[in-house]
């Protein structure tokens, strides 16, 4: 009986160990995720500065394949003025029809060595950005850094509302910038391969 237990428990231990090994390599090379990413945007014009932010952006980065994806619930953007927030959802973004904006892309120049050393790394990401139901291909630069087990993601880029079919009526054309700056700040937790599936 004892020999039977031993003969069964040894392979189980081995399996557990190999699984644990799989998880640790997963931490260095695997997937990172957050559901509390911060995304803000800025519109600056002669008449008015408009700013909004959300802390509900979701992000997933797979360092193995160098692919990444973001998803942002549009209604979660907070504005200084409630009326502005209402207009943003009702009149500009059609948030009922297009509740989310998303980005999916690939890191072009990822260097695992720099990341492992704990230094910040500038990366170029190419992918598709979907806003207001319109998808555009674009290239964005950002920064990656590994800090105490988390993957810090930073990016700043600009979009033109007109490119995404967002109409701005004549009356407020001077209040809203032609080019809106978007800032992404995310600290992603490592996801083990096991839970990612």
């Amino acid at each position, binding site marked *: 009986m004892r020999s039977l237990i031993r003969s069964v428990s040894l392979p189980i231990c081995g399996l557990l160990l190999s699984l644990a090994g799989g998880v640790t390599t997963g931490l260095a090379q695997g997937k990172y995720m957050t559901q509390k990413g911060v995304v803000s945007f800025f519109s600056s014009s002669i008449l008015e500065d408009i*700013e909004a932010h959300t802390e509900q952006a979701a992000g997933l980065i797979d360092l193995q394949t160098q692919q990444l*994806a973001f*998803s942002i619930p549009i209604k979660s953007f907070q504005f200084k003025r409630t009326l502005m927030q209402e207009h943003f959802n009702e009149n500009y973004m059609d948030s009922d029809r297009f509740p989310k904006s998303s980005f999916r892309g690939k890191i072009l120049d990822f260097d695992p060595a720099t990341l492992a050393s704990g230094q910040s790394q500038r990366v170029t990401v190419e992918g598709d950005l979907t806003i207001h139901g319109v998808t555009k291909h674009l290239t964005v630069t950002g920064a990656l850094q590994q800090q105490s087990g988390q993957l810090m993601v930073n990016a700043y880029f600009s979009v033109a509302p007109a490119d995404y079919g967002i109409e701005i009526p004549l009356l407020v054309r001077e209040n809203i910038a032609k080019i809106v700056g978007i800032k992404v700040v995310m600290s992603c937790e490592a996801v083990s391969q096991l839970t990612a599936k």
Partner: protein
Amino acid sequence: MHPTFPLYRGRLASLLVLLLTAWAGPAWAQDDLLGQLETQATPTAATEVVAATFKSTRLINGHTVETPGQGTMVFLISHRFGTLNSGAYNFFGLDQASIRLGLEYALTDKLEIGIGRSSLEKTLDGFVKYRALRQSTGRRAMPVSVTLFASSALNTLRDDRSWYTTSHRMNYSYQALIARKFNPSLSVQLMPTLIHRNLVEDRTQSNDVYAVGIGGRHKLTKRTSLNAEYYYLVPRTAPTGVRNALALGFDIETGGHIFQLHVTNSQGMIEKFFVANTRGNFFKGDLYFGFNVNRNFTIRPKEGFRK
């Protein structure tokens, strides 16, 4: 899956589905990171409030379920000209005008207070509005929004009658505003209403006037809408000679302004006037052309934007 199918076919189907998902799952997860993210990140149908049932705090004459966001002040200028059928001599009503100036402030996202002064009977009014329920979708879905409204109005006309005290000058209005936004363009509201008049003309008149209002808006474009509002007086308590109030309007929204243009058979712009004292016959041309101008000011920015 299909209850009409023989048992073994149902089992086969579910086995197939199981196999397919087990096989396709990991492959799909690796191929489509965004798809994987969306399935993982979507919180299980979080409750989401239905916003912007109406654009303004007013439908036409009466209130909507809407209150401005916390820290927002609304300056409301309401204006009614004379009746259209008053003839060329009165320039079809444009010679006369009745006005109400109002200020409203949202203490919280649910509670709003306001004051106003109408030129009609030199009336001062004050109101409180509370959002009791908000229409929402998701986990805690709610089919309608309900806002409770109470106001008092004081007639400040000079009067020499010795017995005529402040108490005689007071009128009170109570409403339960019940609204549903059926789709982005159509919203409908019901307004059970009670007007209490401290002083009435004689014993045959009821102090309490009951009415049921119905109204709605239909958006024509993103920034314009057609509005309608009707108050039906419960016959038993209806004051003699008073008609049901009907109003048709058109809203135009710009950045921080809402312009509301309308025709109505009521001259007053507060509940005691348009519910309990509408004298005009809509279909005989006793139409008052008028407008409301709403201007919003952010007195206290939202949290996270305060300096």
